[in-house]
């Protein structure tokens, strides 16, 4: 930021003032903690979820240290608490809020041409609720943790566990409302606050993704809230609703739990896919191929995602007929995801590809998400699932989609929009190194786990037969590389806030309303509400139609690239 300067005495004083942005519009903790500016709230979330990511990562580190040797280092109870807390913190305090609460909060109003979300105060409230839930979690972590697994299966969680289940259940219950309020805000905002001319099919696909995610949040999270509340009531007041000795049914808990927790995984991945659309379009300088297919596939994933939860109950005693239906629909839900991957690939084809850090993360996402998604199909087949369920195969599967997919999308998006958010570029070279480190470390960590699971190593076990040690050591080694890959951006991103190259409004030459305003934006985003006339990703001429009777694109590439 430029500072005031005065000419020498005698000359007419020229005072260069700082341009007013949302960052310097008010200083001091009160202006941040009582802000209703969606961009500041996004930064508040950025800080908090980074903190919880570190905590979740610390639990993972301890787990991988334990698993480097076949014999026990920790006590079993302790290990149970480690994997439980790792899961709870990563899912509820990092993955679920990450892109919606950070990038979504920052960008949704700007991308649709609005001055803020529909309910700015509710937005701030959602952050405070998140913090309260987080404090409950910290209390639980510091006073000994929970050992039920993040899935809280009854009756262990409701009756037999002697760990801090009630406090954790209350913490998760509270945090759920943060999610619900964010989703509610986004839904109303996208319906009611689009700028003139911004029709649904002119919206960036990032907005479609946030919208679909918000539907999932609003329809699914309340069910988790009630279910976890019942567990807490049972522990605190012994109401006995899941107590098998009086007829309580553990499978009922599983149905209610997974009714949310399966859509939750789509809550976690859809925003990532939304980010990938934006990055791919920008760094191929092409509009996303098959825009409406991608938009509808987003809604399809949201809808189908609600119909498949029983694939977590294949071995629970669920009826085989229900299992068959759930299995079939689970395979169906892969189709819209595949549609997206095909569309991204088609977008890349004959695009002007620029390998920047966000693009590295996006390309990594496409590959790793595909592997993760395909292994999900393995698990959707009941007969295969009987062997693979509760093994490391499942762990590898969901880490491929969540870490190889979602987390890389988050990092890619963070880098892509960093200059917009802070007016500073991150240093490209260390960033690329970090991206490659993450990719290598990630695969080394989790690919061996597919093999381990196939070979029969169960999940949630701290000891294993010695013949599994080599793969476990590879996995732990990969984890240490992965950790480096996460620490490097932490350092240079913070560094860039003060010493990074100043960024203009559009360092990437990207299309989108967010790139038409200054970096960082003013508090009200736009001096005047824009009128939108062009569609999303208006990068160049429409792709040529291929097929019989049409011109083949052939060597016309030079003619097609139009300066704009």
């Amino acid at each position, binding site marked *: 930021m430029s500072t005031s300067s005065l000419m020498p005495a005698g000359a007419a004083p020229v005072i260069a003032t700082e341009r007013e942005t949302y960052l310097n519009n008010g200083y001091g903790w009160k202006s941040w903690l009582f802000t209703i500016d969606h961009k500041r709230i996004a930064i508040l979330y950025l800080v908090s979820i980074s903190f919880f990511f570190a905590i979740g990562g610390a639990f993972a580190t301890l787990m991988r240290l334990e698993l480097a040797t076949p014999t026990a280092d920790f006590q079993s109870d302790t290990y149970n608490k480690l994997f439980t807390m790792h899961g709870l913190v990563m899912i509820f305090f990092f993955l679920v809020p990450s892109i919606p609460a950070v990038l979504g909060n920052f960008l949704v109003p700007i991308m649709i041409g609005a001055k803020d979300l529909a309910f700015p105060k509710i937005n701030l409230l959602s952050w405070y609720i998140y913090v309260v839930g987080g404090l409950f979690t910290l209390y639980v972590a510091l006073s000994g943790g929970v050992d039920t697994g993040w899935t809280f299966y009854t009756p262990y969680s409701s009756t037999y566990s002697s760990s801090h289940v009630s406090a954790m259940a209350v913490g998760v219950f509270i945090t759920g409302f943060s999610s619900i309020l964010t989703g*509610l805000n986004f839904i109303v905002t996208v319906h009611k606050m689009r700028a003139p001319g911004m029709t649904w099919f002119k919206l960036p696909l990032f907005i479609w993704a946030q919208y679909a995610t918000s539907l999932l949040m609003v329809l699914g999270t309340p069910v988790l*809230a009630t279910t976890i509340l*019942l567990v807490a009531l049972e522990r605190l007041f012994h109401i*006995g609703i899941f107590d098998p000795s009086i007829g309580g049914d553990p499978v009922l808990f599983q149905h209610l739990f997974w009714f949310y927790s399966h859509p939750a995984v789509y809550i976690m991945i859809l925003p990532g896919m939304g980010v990938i659309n934006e990055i791919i379009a920008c760094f191929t300088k092409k509009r996303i191929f098959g825009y409406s297919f991608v938009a509808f596939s987003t809604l399809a994933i949201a809808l189908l995602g609600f119909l498949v939860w029983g694939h977590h109950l294949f071995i629970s005693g669920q009826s085989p007929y229900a299992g068959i239906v759930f299995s079939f629909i689970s395979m169906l839900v892969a189709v819209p995801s595949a549609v997206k991957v095909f569309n991204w690939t088609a977008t890349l084809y004959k695009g002007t590809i620029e390998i920047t850090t966000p693009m590295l993360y996006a390309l990594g996402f496409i590959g790793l998400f595909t592997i993760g998604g395909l292994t999900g199909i393995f698990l959707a087949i009941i007969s295969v699932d009987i062997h693979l369920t509760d093994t490391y195969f499942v762990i590898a599967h969901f880490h491929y989609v969540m870490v190889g997919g979602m987390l890389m999308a988050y990092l890619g998006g963070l880098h892509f929009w960093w200059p917009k958010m802070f007016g500073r570029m991150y240093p490209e070279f260390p960033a690329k190194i970090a991206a490659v480190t993450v990719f290598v470390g990630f695969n080394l960590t989790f690919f061996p786990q597919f093999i381990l699971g196939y070979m029969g190593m169960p999940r949630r076990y701290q000891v294993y037969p010695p013949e599994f040690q080599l793969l476990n050591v590879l996995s732990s080694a990969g984890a240490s590389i992965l950790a480096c890959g996460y620490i490097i951006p932490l350092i240079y991103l913070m560094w860039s806030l003060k010493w990074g190259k100043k960024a203009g409004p559009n360092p990437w030459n990207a299309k989108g309303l967010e790139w038409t305003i200054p970096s960082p934006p003013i508090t009200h985003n736009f001096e005047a509400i824009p009128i939108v006339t062009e569609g999303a990703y208006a990068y160049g001429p429409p792709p040529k139609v291929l097929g019989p009777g049409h011109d083949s694109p052939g060597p016309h590439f030079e003619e097609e690239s139009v300066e704009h």
Partner: protein
Amino acid sequence: MSTEPILATHAAAPHGASHAHATVSGLPAPTAHHFVDLVQQEEAEKLGMWTFLITEVMFFGALFTAYTVYRNMYPEAFLLASSKLNWRLGGVNTLVLIVSSLTMAMSIRCAQTSKRGLMLMNIVLTGLFGATFLVIKYFEYSEKWHHHLMPGPTFNYAEFGQWGPQARIFFSLYFAMTGLHAFHMIVGLGLMTWVFIKARSGHFTPRRYAGMEISGLYWHFVDLVWIFLFPMLYLLGAHHHLA
């Protein structure tokens, strides 16, 4: 995407000029300035409340699901346990809530037609009927407490013969569902208090009564939940003990 910023002649209303009709659309100015005009603001507020009510449908829905599963599993136990509930009090409470919904709807109509005195009276009546509901609920709960029907360790299994354990599950659901409902009722009373205070200071006019309308939506929703709770919890074994 090309953006043609609206020229200065159509600049959005400056802050603080909330009473000037200087909005782009020519419609009344909003009271919250991130909105373009009052219509957008009111539509957003209403949609926001509907979205919230959908979350409530799913929130209660999980309990209705548990109820459906367990009732299907233990029909005799549920019949027997339900017969211990006081259907008269439950029925009266149902009527109380229906009346309160009427007065709520009427109070909004009064806001629409500028009938200030009647509007205030209807708001007060709505709140009073809501409070009546809670008082009756209190009497019901204390009756259960005295008969050892709270679903905890003191539960009186003997009263239900062989179905004792499962009857306790019925009561877990009864207290969870009606308890959650009563909590929502208490929040509703808080909303009514806010509505009354705002209405008394002339905040609601035929042009601007969205705050009252969305409070009404919430109130009707709480009534709606009870319309389903009553037959499902109280009337199961009615033909056994009413005849």
